[in-house]
């Protein structure tokens, strides 16, 4: 962490990244890009957790980051498997073309 930068700056950056990710999820059509946006949101949260952990002088936040990272990896593995399966069956992973069930 840089000296002289107040923690609120990190929190604001993290909030902005989170918001960019959330907007990306809502406006993008490609499942892979949407998933990348979700990963971005998780990373933004990690930034918040690390910041809080550093300024509160407590280890809980860092601990949480470890678990968030593993969970994100597990999610990615499962998610990509589902995408591949869907692509094999339908030839597309654009979310607006996946409409066998009424969206």
């Amino acid at each position, binding site marked *: 962490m840089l000296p*002289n930068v107040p923690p609120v700056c990190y929190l604001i950056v993290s909030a902005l990244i989170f918001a960019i990710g959330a907007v990306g999820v809502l406006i993008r059509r490609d499942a892979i890009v949407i998933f990348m946006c979700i990963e971005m949101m998780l990373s933004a949260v990690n930034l918040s957790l690390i910041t809080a952990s550093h300024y509160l002088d407590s280890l809980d936040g860092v601990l949480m980051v*470890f678990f968030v*990272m*593993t969970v994100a*990896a*597990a999610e*990615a*593995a499962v998610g*990509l*498997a589902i995408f*591949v399966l869907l692509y094999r069956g339908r030839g597309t992973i654009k979310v607006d073309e996946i409409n066998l069930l009424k969206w």
Partner: protein
Amino acid sequence: MLIKYVPVLFLLALSIFFAVFVVFLSHLLGPKRVHPVKAAPYECGMISLGPTHQAIPIKYYIIAMLFLVFDLEVVFLYPWAVVFRELGIFGFVEMMIFIFILLLGFIYVWRKGALEWE
């Protein structure tokens, strides 16, 4: 305080200005001779045949997925290694159980044939 970052701001503004200015300048001054060959994707060499987006074999994807999952588990080994001496035998047993569960996952993957290349 933040004031000492002001030169950085200056440099940033200057570099953005310079980049935009140079692009604009070359657009203004450069001669324009339009020719179909120049518009082709590769000016020299062959024009590509067929679609360039090739399907990548699914095998790569499975390896990548397995790597991702097993690689991330190593994250938990680092903090354990740092305090290995303080935790002593208890930490060792704990980590062995963790690795044993990973090993079970590995056996599953192996028996499923996900590691066979051909």
